[in-house]
């Protein structure tokens, strides 16, 4: 079985960012907005020639974007270099997804995009347009916690809670795909998220509870 449907599917950084002069993929993404010197065309996209083809380019200034978040259409204005995570947190005040490593390692920013988990820190906001984005804020229905959320509470699968929204999203997506997950599927599905307080024991118990519930016909795909 391919693991691509359950692992976070962003490529790893190309370079170690161990020094101030180091170049990481993310810093490259962030910086590229100012590095390009393209004549400004008022009111939208510019076209540049790249490898013999016409390529539409946004920026470097702010551009209007529309994101579909938890079923609602949200509009804001961001520089093209802004990540989905930063647009959510800084521009739309949707702060459940957390910024921790900011380079696709720890999973604290995990959201679901078109049915797959992604690291929101490594998706550009402009590229998230037209996709269905689900964040932890979108799991409750009618004021009731999603069974995965309830299982995290019941099994104390959290301490400081900073990694929790990411784990909840990864766990929910894993159970949507594998309602009766094997040991390996759990380790694969949650292997892209890290916790510092050490709540994995509770998380394993929470997965077991939520899986039992979903097999009994509990609500899924919430």
């Amino acid at each position, binding site marked *: 079985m391919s693991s691509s449907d359950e692992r976070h599917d962003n490529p790893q*950084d190309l370079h*170690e*960012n*161990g*020094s*101030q*002069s180091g170049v990481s993929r993310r810093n490259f993404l*962030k910086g590229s*907005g100012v590095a390009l010197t393209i004549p400004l065309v008022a009111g939208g996209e510019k076209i540049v020639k790249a490898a013999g083809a016409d390529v539409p380019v946004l920026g470097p200034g702010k551009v209007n974007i529309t994101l579909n978040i938890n079923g609602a259409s949200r509009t804001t204005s961001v*520089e093209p*270099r*802004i990540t989905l995570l*930063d647009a959510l*947190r*800084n521009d739309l*005040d*949707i*702060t*459940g997804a*957390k*910024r*921790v*490593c*900011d*380079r696709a*390692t*720890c999973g*604290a920013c995990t959201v679901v995009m078109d049915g797959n988990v992604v690291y929101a820190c490594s998706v550009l906001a402009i590229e998230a347009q037209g996709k269905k984005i689900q*964040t*932890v*804020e979108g*799991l*409750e229905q009618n004021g009731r*916690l999603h069974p995965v*959320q*309830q299982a*995290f*509470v019941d099994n*104390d699968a*959290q*301490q*400081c*809670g*900073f*990694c*929790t929204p990411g784990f*909840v999203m990864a766990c929910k997506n894993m159970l949507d795909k594998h309602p009766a997950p094997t040991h390996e599927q759990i380790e694969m599905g*949650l*292997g892209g*998220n*890290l*916790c*510092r*307080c*050490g*709540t*994995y*024991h*509770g*998380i394993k118990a929470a997965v077991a509870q939520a899986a039992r519930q979903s097999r009994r016909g509990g609500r899924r795909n919430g």
Partner: protein
Amino acid sequence: MAEYKWPEEGKRKHIGKRISRVDGPDKVSGKAKYTYDINRPGMLFAKLVRSPYARAKIVSIDTSAAEKMPGVKSVRVIQQPGAEIRWAGDEIVAVAAVDESSAEDAARAVKIVYEKLPHFVNEADLAAAPASYRRQPTEQTKGDPDTAFKEAEVVVENTYGNDVMTHCCLEAHGLIAEWEDDNKLLVHPSTQAVSGNGAELARALQIPAGNVHLKMDHMGGGFGSKFPIDRWGIEAARLSKLAGGKPVKVMLERDAELMLAGTRPSAYAKVKVGAKKDGTIVAWESESWGSGGPAGTGMPPYPYVWQIPNTKTKHHSISTDVGPQRAWRAPNHPQACLVTMGALEDLAAKLNMDPLDFVIKNIELTGARANVYKDEMMKAAEMIEWKKIWRPRGEGGMGSTKTLKRGLGLSLHTWGGGGHASNCDVTINSDGTVDVKMGTQDLGVGTRTAIRIVAAETFGIPIDQVKEHIGDNSYPASGSSGGSTTIGGISASTRRGSIDALNMLFEKIAPSMNTTADKLEAVDGKIQVIGSPNNSMTWKQACAKLGMQPITARGKNPGPGNLTSAGVGGVQMADVTVDIETGVVKMNNFVAVQDCGLIIDMKTTESQVFGAMIMGIGYALYEEKIMDSQTGRMLNPNMEFYKLAGLADIGNFKVHMMTGKGYDERGPIGIGEPPTVSPGAAISNAVANAIGVRVPTLPLTPDRVLAALEKERRG
């Protein structure tokens, strides 16, 4: 007079039960707002320009380009030309701008010229430390170690240690500062010291301490690293002032968080330990060193717990050009435990003794807690099936194959954890609800839950009728969350305040029940004449009599009655499998037996122990702050190469809490630190038992395991 004591075991309705943390639903739904999540109106973002060199002099600083950039609102030079830098990542200039990317651009536009100086960042090899980085060693002798070693029949000598690790709080250090007027500051910090941080800010900013208002609902981990406001925090307040008081948010980048905001000192030791043939430990000698940055570091308490009659210790404090140390859960204990329990395991192996038998034989040397340790040791051995699985060193435990070697290791530890000073206001409202206000903080350990449990227990009401208000320094002052002192402090102040408030309510309603206050009790949502359920009124009816005048009582710790004490013990045993072809260590089972006095909430208490053990697996097997001797920089200031344990790395766990007689009457004692002490020792010992040779230094990475095996093969 009211009696200040904890309810007896049979009468407890909430205390000691398994209660889910009360802020759990907020945390799983994204509603819990952490400092990092707070967006204030008109908020600016701060970024810091940091030194790329470990040791250097600042020659010149040019901020003119940065100041002219669009969106930049304030720029501050923190360290002037001429200042000497002592670690890579030190802050030199701070900028604030309207959004994060503008602040980043501005920080990049600052030009700083340095004169690079020679640095020293790796202290593992004592002989390589330059003279100017060494302090005068300290020496101590107890008894007559020279004679004792001459008379000892079995002596082992070995080297042990662990490298520097870092805290890696998932929520980075930082805060949001804003001036409400010229003289009044509002701060949203991520801190372990809500009541304590005002003074630091006030001193730096020269305003009265009472003019600093701190507010924090949730914080994403501290582990000992988040007591100070830190230079970046003070600078955010100064940038805010320069920008007309606008809120300024500073949160460390992940690389800065790992480089600067967390360092647990390293510890290395050459140890000689001797025993009689029957296993009686008689003598200890150690020469140790370690560093926690520019100020070096003191000697961990060698030998740890064991009161060996004849000891000689010598310690070298080494300074390095690395970001300064911060308290890490149970400062000095994990290091002391690893070195001591490692040496004792090696001694047991040379004696051809099962370390479990060896420890029990010498258990009186653990002092006043010997009986507790003995009980905990036997319980842990039963949980991990020690006698069934354990085999002598190098033979491979039960189920080993030619290349997969199983081993068991054990360790024990102690910690104080007595309750800190704490004040709270407990209010009984006329609608029957109760509010507890306290200037404490919940680091994720369940502080909110504990306050609710203690108040609800005292009033005989459900916990959802109590609401705690914490994380604000305008509430009665309560201690910092360090040294595992919070649970004792906040439980005792809440209990005393609740008892006093309840007595005030009794005074109010006693006449209408034709009795006196001293004859009343609060049980099961009722207030009744003691032992007479028929002569009662409901809690709600009683509170309704308060009308327009709610009751408030101040609870304090310390205070009357013996509600808390200090001192706990714990035992951990690890079961590992080592692949001797790849050097990879895999956790099979890990058990902990721990006491911590009266347990307020069993569920969150166990979580603390599980969490401590998991963090312990991290520092035993993976975590290492790798410093590059050439550049003086940290090579792995990120989460790809500074590796935390993941869900698949931890194996199976069992935790047993010691409760009941002998434990409960000691009152609640802190649990955050003690179970973090033993994992390194227990896992290192298990690996030594599995492969037949000591891997001297944590983390036990595959290369080190293979190197130790290779060294053994070559003799």
